[in-house]
């Protein structure tokens, strides 16, 4: 023990191994790193930078990439309407009068067999079944009254006579003395039924239509038409017509139409749907093109049937909850929130640094000039500072924001304008600090010495005075960074700062203006708010630590 003590006392007081001389900068650094809060702040800022700049590079998504998702949506597939108007199947080259729809209804109600249309043409309607007619073009048969009378007697009170050599129509009352008499030529059928051929390239002949209608009305099993022999399987309101054992045509009192543009409804499909409708079911199944059974739903609305089915539909993935694919979820535009947080962080942090740089640059020059030259220069600059202090900043930013809205400034232009305006309005505080510091430094001995050695004014200001102001500047800048980020976030929150598609933390929280988002999608606004809080807090911790480190007087 004694030996050790002796050895220590032998060392000189300024022995290098005994006293570690630290430069002033090192002293500051040492004091700074002993401050736990400052270290926490440094770590947070480092993490934020890594998150925003490195994370932004690593994340596979971009800030404005929109994501889509597929959901099962019930979509209208087909519509079926009960036919309540006459449908006409025309022969080749036939046109019917324009008012035939109303005249046909009239004739059906009154039981007329000759239809007088407005343009003077006369049509004969032969009733083959309930609301089923065959229409004929009429040519008047001229003849002596005796002949006509004879015809009439032959008719035995009927208005329509089917004979071997054609079909004949009487007009007027049966007991009229001289009836008008016509010979008919078949031109169309009128019925409240629809014909659907099984293959799309078959066109149905008029003869087929009229024979089919007759057969259906009479409840027969087969009929002959131009095309050959057909068999009919009739149900109450529909019938399936086969030729040579193959399905040929489908007859029904429902009108089907596809709602999608590239949907072709096969007769089998219609038949199935019709059965379901007749049985009053609300859903049915039918195999699709690949043979998979698909479920269809039927909705009835005043005789209008809508057939719906679930379809895979591509929609924007809005407010998707956090998942493996989107770690923080997606926002209202279906963009990945994590990517937006990263890119938003870039903008928020960069704006902070750019604005503080502008503030310090202008503030240092103005404050330095004012403090060094004094007199009227000082007075003038300080009054400018006062004026800038008096301008209310938040309302001003809001006005500028609405001006930029009006001129539809792009999101990049907005960022630049915001930086410049915030910088130009923020330098006043720094100028005051610099001026105050320089005023007191100017009177100190080292400045008198500098003046005595004949150093130029420029060098005196920027080599001797300014470096002594730097500590205050650094403290102010680190705290100012936090303030700027907060101001930018507030503006973006109000929707006046950074705008879509660019992101900033403030503009991400903007979503809470919709209270539904606020209550239901916490993951949208909580992370961005926490990031702002943490970043600003970290800058304040660092600033606080720096102040303590630079100003050891405050330590006891």
């Amino acid at each position, binding site marked *: 023990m004694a030996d050790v003590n002796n050895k220590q006392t032998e060392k000189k007081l300024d022995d290098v191994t005994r006293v570690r001389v630290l430069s002033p900068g090192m002293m500051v650094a040492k004091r700074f790193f002993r401050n736990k809060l400052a270290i926490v702040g440094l770590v947070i800022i480092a993490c934020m930078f890594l998150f925003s700049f490195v994370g932004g590079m690593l994340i596979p998504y971009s800030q404005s990439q929109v994501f889509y998702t597929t959901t099962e949506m019930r979509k209208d597939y087909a519509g079926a309407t009960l036919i309540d108007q006459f449908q006409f199947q025309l022969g080749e080259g036939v046109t019917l009068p324009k008012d035939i729809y109303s005249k046909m209804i009239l004739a059906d109600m009154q039981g007329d067999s000759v239809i007088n249309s407005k343009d003077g043409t006369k049509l004969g309607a032969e009733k083959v079944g309930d609301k089923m007619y065959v229409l004929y073009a009429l040519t008047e048969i001229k003849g002596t009254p005796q002949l006509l009378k004879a015809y009439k007697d032959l008719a035995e009170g009927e208005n329509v006579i089917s004979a071997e050599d054609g079909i004949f129509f009487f007009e007027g009352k049966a007991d009229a003395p001289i009836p008008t008499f016509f010979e008919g030529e078949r031109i169309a059928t009128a019925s409240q039924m629809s014909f659907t051929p099984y293959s799309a390239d078959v066109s149905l002949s008029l003869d087929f239509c009229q024979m089919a209608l007759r057969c259906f009305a009479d409840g027969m099993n087969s009929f002959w038409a131009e095309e050959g022999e057909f068999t009919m399987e009739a149900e109450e309101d529909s019938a399936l017509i086969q030729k040579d054992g193959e399905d040929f045509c489908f007859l029904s009192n429902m009108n089907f139409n596809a709602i999608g543009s590239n949907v072709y409804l096969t007769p089998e499909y219609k038949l199935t749907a019709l059965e379901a409708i007749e049985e009053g079911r609300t859903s049915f199944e039918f195999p699709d093109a690949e043979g998979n059974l698909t479920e269809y739903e039927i909705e009835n609305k005043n005789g209008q049937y809508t057939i719906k089915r679930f379809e895979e539909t591509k929609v924007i993935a809005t407010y998707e909850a956090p998942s493996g694919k989107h770690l923080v979820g997606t926002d209202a535009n279906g963009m990945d929130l994590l990517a937006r947080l990263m890119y938003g962080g870039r903008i928020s942090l960069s704006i902070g640094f750019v604005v503080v740089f502008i503030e310090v640059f202008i503030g240092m020059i103005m404050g330095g000039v004012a403090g060094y030259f004094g007199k009227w220069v000082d007075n003038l600059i300080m009054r400018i500072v006062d004026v800038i202090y*008096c301008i*209310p900043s938040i*309302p001003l930013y*809001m006005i500028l924001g*609405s001006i930029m809205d*009006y001129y539809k400034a792009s999101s990049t232009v907005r960022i630049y304008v915001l930086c410049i305006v915030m910088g130009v309005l923020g330098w006043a505080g720094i100028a005051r600090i610099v001026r105050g510091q320089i005023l007191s430094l100017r009177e100190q001995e080292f400045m008198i010495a500098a003046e005595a050695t004949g150093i130029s004014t420029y060098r005196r200001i920027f080599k001797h005075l300014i470096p002594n102001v730097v500590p205050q500047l650094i403290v102010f800048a680190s705290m100012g960074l936090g303030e700027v980020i*907060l101001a930018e976030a507030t503006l973006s929150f109000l929707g006046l700062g950074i705008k879509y598609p660019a992101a900033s933390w403030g503009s991400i929280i903007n979503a809470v203006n919709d209270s539904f988002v606020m209550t239901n999608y916490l993951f949208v606004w909580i992370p961005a708010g926490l990031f*702002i809080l943490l970043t600003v807090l970290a800058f304040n911790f660092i600033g606080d630590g720096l102040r303590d480190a630079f100003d050891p007087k*405050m330590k006891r």
Partner: protein
Amino acid sequence: MKKFILKRLLISVVLLFFVSLIIYAIMRCMPMSYVETQAMALATRPGAKSYEEWVKQLNAQYGLDVGVIQGYFIWASKAVRMQFGDSWYWNQPVLTKFQNVIWYSFFLGLVTFIIEIIIAIPAGISAARKQYSLTDYSVTVIALLGISLPSFFFATILKYVFSVKLGWFDLYGIVGRMHESMTPMQQLGDIIWHMVLPVVTISVVSIGGLMRYTRTNMLEVLNSDYIRTARAKGVSERKVVNHHAFRNTLIPIVTLLGGSLPGLFSGAMITETLFQIPGIGYTSDVSIMQGDIPFVMFYMVFLAVLTLLGNLIADILYAVVDPRVRVS
């Protein structure tokens, strides 16, 4: 002293002239959406003049057809006679609207101010008394948290917890749904109840500054020579802190508080807008969005006057409170 005040007053008037000129110039850049909308509405009336004619007439009516400088002097000559014109959006004189809404803001500001003083000053002093203790660290962290907390974020969290989850408060507004059917006392209570969340928001966000200011000044005082002398004389620690140190700390604090008195009228734009408290801040926010130039112009100049007034009060108070300044 009189000369000093007079000089400061004169400088303030000059400053106000330039500030209002700048504000007016910026206001004139504002999109004239209000005039255009009005003209559009007027032009659609039966037998009305064309849209262009209406725009012209309205611009002339509102003094928007002359240059910025000329327009400013027209505005200023009226403003010094306290004629701020009619608000476009609110359809009443600017001053009437101002008188209707200012008291909400003042009440909000006053309550916050008192809460701030009650909490921040004792907290700052106790932090300074034991520097680097747990108290000091927690006060520093709380103060910095408050400073760093974005008011809109904090307000949203409060709304989420207390309005949405617990259902204690309404999300927006100054009065409840049943306000009309209440007795006057209940109505007052209703309004106060609706003020709770805004007051909490503003208090928490703004309390940090005063806390830190108190702590820094108290530390400075506690490190000064006369405190060391008092301790050396054997004065009890309680007396040192409460009498010698505290009174001296009061000098900068009173100056600061006095300077912020006019600020009680300035309204909290963000918080009022978030909670839709119909104070001056919320009214101005709506006015800015609607391009209501007379009202916004008035509000901006009003804020500038408040700032100048605050500086003036702080300067005077500084001289009044601290005898050393008066002597020099």
